[in-house]
């Protein structure tokens, strides 16, 4: 599969080159690359076609099993225009890619299951550029008449908050949380919100596993660091161990050189490290810390394959505490999702893919409820009212081999609670070590560990 993919890319590269006039020089090499292109793409189509069938079957049947039959009550005949505000180019394009894949799969499955017709428009916010985000959301509102929106990244989501409240557009954010997004009308989070949410549990777990650890190092970006740095971590750590935070360093999003921070941590002799950075940055950090000869536990709050590929084998010494999405979760909906995703895209779904997949099902659920109540299922206000009336939704998180998981949105601050856990990584794959929960700062951090 991997070879096929790269082969296809090689062909595309050859075409790109001939566009720029290079390949024009040698016609012989041109034909060979075209041939190989033809071969590989034929193979690709064949395998895609084969898997498409199974996808349809698996998707269609299992979705109906979980969400009930299709038909008018399920929104058949209703067209809901949804927008996505993602990073489609540049550094964050990987995230945009998997997010849009998740949502697209959900739209396909719902249509096949006889549900609503969910139409997606994608906008690129150019790695969190606020003016672009504002312009693009306006475009989707006025050109594409979107009623619901799936947004991402902190700063743009915060910036569009007044815009979606005014329009209105019912918006879910599944990646990129920030304090400024809390309690905003029409803006809801289905990604576990803050870096501080799992922090207490993560620290408690470290204390449990490494009782001798007394000093803590904190790493984070300014985006996510503030709360953890100033309050959550020092308090919880002091309560747990009586020790203190000895290093607290912030860095810029997208940094790759963490030698300086690693040296400072080593020099300060920290017994444990908690990082609240996101994305690729975390991969660079783990690698730098381990290569600086620091052996102490390193706890993050996110896991992505991207970061793992950067850190390589050093990621096997990494722990993280989050509402981690697990492809192995036997929850029937999750298995149905994973199978369909693999069939459609030839790869396992990513954490962020699952969040945006779920979001579309939340919209579908709301549409069905509004239809049942005799309302207009494309009215964002009615959709939000339905959400507030019952903020419980099915989830690919949690559950068991027989029961589909469930999540609840917080109708006060519009955040979400999801099952969280502390994970370790083994051969690049996360393994659940300990379930944790969010606790208030006043509580004993040890109570964050689910017994």
């Amino acid at each position, binding site marked *: 599969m991997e070879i096929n993919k790269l082969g296809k890319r090689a062909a595309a590269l050859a075409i790109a080159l001939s566009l720029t006039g290079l390949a024009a020089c040698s016609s012989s090499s041109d034909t060979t690359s075209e041939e190989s292109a033809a071969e590989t793409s034929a193979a690709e189509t064949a395998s895609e076609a084969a898997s498409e069938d199974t996808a349809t079957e698996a998707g269609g049947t299992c979705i109906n099993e979980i969400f009930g039959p299709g038909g008018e009550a399920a929104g058949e005949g209703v067209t809901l225009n949804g927008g996505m505000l993602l990073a*489609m*180019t540049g550094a964050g*394009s990987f995230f945009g890619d998997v997010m849009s894949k998740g949502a697209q799969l959900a739209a396909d499955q719902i249509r096949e299951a006889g549900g609503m017709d969910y139409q*997606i*428009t*994608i906008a*690129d916010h150019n790695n*969190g*550029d*606020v*003016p672009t985000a*504002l*312009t693009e959301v*306006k*475009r989707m*509102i*006025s*050109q594409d008449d979107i009623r619901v929106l799936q947004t991402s990244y*902190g*700063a743009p989501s*915060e*910036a569009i*908050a*007044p*815009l979606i409240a*005014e329009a209105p557009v019912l918006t879910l954010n599944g990646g990129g949380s*920030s*304090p*400024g997004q809390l*309690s905003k009308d029409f803006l809801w989070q289905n990604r576990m919100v803050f870096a501080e949410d799992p922090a207490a549990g993560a620290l408690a777990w470290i204390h449990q596993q490494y009782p001798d650890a007394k000093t803590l190092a904190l790493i984070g*970006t*300014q*985006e996510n660091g*503030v709360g953890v740095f100033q309050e959550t971590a020092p308090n919880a750590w002091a309560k747990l161990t009586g020790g203190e935070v000895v290093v607290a360093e912030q860095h*810029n*999003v997208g940094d790759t050189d963490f030698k300086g921070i690693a040296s400072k941590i080593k020099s300060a002799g920290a017994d444990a490290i908690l990082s609240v950075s996101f994305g690729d940055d975390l991969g660079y950090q783990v690698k730098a810390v381990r290569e600086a000869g620091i052996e102490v536990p390193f706890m993050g709050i996110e896991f992505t394959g991207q970061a793992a590929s950067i850190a390589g084998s050093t990621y096997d010494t990494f722990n993280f505490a989050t509402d981690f999405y697990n492809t192995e979760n036997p929850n029937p909906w999750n298995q149905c999702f994973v199978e369909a995703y693999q069939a459609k895209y030839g790869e396992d779904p990513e954490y962020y893919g699952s969040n945006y997949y779920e979001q579309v099902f939340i919209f579908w659920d709301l549409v069905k409820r509004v239809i049942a109540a005799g309302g207009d299922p494309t009215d964002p206000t009615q959709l939000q009212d339905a959400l507030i009336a019952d903020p419980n939704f099915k989830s690919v998180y949690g559950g068991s081999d027989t029961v589909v998981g469930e999540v609840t949105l917080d109708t006060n601050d519009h955040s979400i609670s999801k099952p969280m856990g502390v994970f370790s990584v083994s051969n690049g794959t996360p393994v659940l070590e300990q379930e944790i929960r969010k606790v208030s700062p006043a509580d004993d951090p040890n109570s964050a560990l689910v017994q």
Partner: protein
Amino acid sequence: MGYYAQIAINILILMSLAVSLNLLLGYAGRVSMAQAVLFGIGAFTAARLVLPKADASSAVAASGINYGLGWHWLPATVVAIGVTFVAALIISLPAIRLIKGEYLILLTLAFQLGGEQILSVWEGFTGGPFGVAGIPPLKIGDTSFSTLRESGTILYAGLMLVITIIVILISWGLGESPFGRLLKTIRGNETLLPSLGKNPIRPELLTFGITAAIAGGIGAFFAYSQGAMVPGNFSLDLSILVISVVVLGGTGNIAGTIVGAIILGGLEPILRQVLGDEGIPWQRVIYGAALVLMMIIRPAGLIPEGALTRIRKPKVAKSFDQNLNGAQGIQFGDFTNKRSSSPEENLSEVLVIEDIKKSFGGLSAVGGASFSLRKGQITALIGPNGAGKTTIFNMITGTLSCDSGSIKLRGRELTGMPTYEIERLGIARSFQDVRLNESMTVLDNVAVAVPNQPGEKIFNLILHPLKSRKAEKSVNQIALDCLAVLGVAQTAHELVRNLSYGDQKLVAIARLLATDCDVLLLDEPTSGVDPGSVNLVIEGVSKLRDLGKTVCLVEHSVHFVERLADHAIFLDQGVVIAEGTVAELVSSAELTELYFGN
């Protein structure tokens, strides 16, 4: 509609930034990479001022970042403009004094990159990476220009259009004013302006400041229109985008910049529409490729400088040629700052040079030259290559300091004075190369030399626009008259680059005349002129004498010197060897040997 209005706002903001940068980049020829961070300083200053005051009772006050002083937008904008202006002066002072060309690019680049980082770590001011949100919309009377609503967005686009038009008018007004003429003249020609009696530093600094101030003001309106922003909005990418607009459109002309902004600002939304969701990465590919292609096809920009200048037939004062015959001269009226009246006015020796010396690194270039220029006469400096003729010109005009000796204009010592001071006392020079701005009209090239123009001061342009305009008419008339004296008035509205070299030489002499100096130093007026035009140049130079000017020229072609000079001074190795009429000098065997070698 709301979307298109938003696109319009974005393009207009980009356009305003680019139009103002064009003043600096296009007119003054200085590249600044710091435009984005200056824009950001304006935006955050305004945002902090207009954000509501922190309300202690508010539940979210704890997050504490989206609060400010609760000012009205108008004073906030004014303060934003002021703060940016000052910030720009801080970088430009050393930048312009010490650093030219690529160093200025780098200095501003360092300022931009460092500034970006400061903005992103200075949470108290910018809110850190999350920036500020909830900036209240701009209100005029009861009308809220809130861009959250479609109607508000359209209104704001209208407002932005008005602001952009104002920015364009300001930039155009400055660019096409005597002030802009000064800037264009400075470009690539730092030494010229002082020789016309004008100090180049101040207009450059002011341009830097004004460009920044406009960016700051636009920053304020950007903040009001966005409602939210982060330091990342003011990154180097934006600076580069703004420069791209100017270069793509064509530097030094505002029409080009407007077109450039529409293309670069409009290309992405159009590609977005055409390519759809699937084509998002392709947008950037096509965008980049388009940029490359456009530069390959039109490397001087879509509308090169001067391309739109209309060729008009000038209204030449027909009567002027007759007036000239009466040796009445050109009427400068108020437009002179020459302090010519002094007790020794009647001296026949206007300029007296005594034993001036100059050596470079031990090598003597001028080894004690003494001579004087007689009123109303043409004096020629002749001598072999390396005789120190041009060096003496440089010493007289103060571009080179004298190691020793004295230079007196009507008894007043000139040594040690800066060039532009010396010019104001009445000595102007031309250069071997014409040093005209090829993209300006002939008239503008000459008009720049007219002294004492009120329109060269921004203060006047703003406070006395009418007076400045009226003055400009007189200035143009003077310039036209000067051109008429040299017989090239019919070319007044043509671009210099379309002129033959002979005509360009004549224009350069006309410019000298327009300084109203009475001592004129001409460095090789006929060199490089085609044979057909040489006579015109010779005639032109002799007209200077007819107007009562005291002329000194360096000329290698003795052939021409003979026809022009009343008096000649033979120099060798920076020393006066002989003086006399040209005929006397060339008949000397000794001088012949010195000149043609032995």
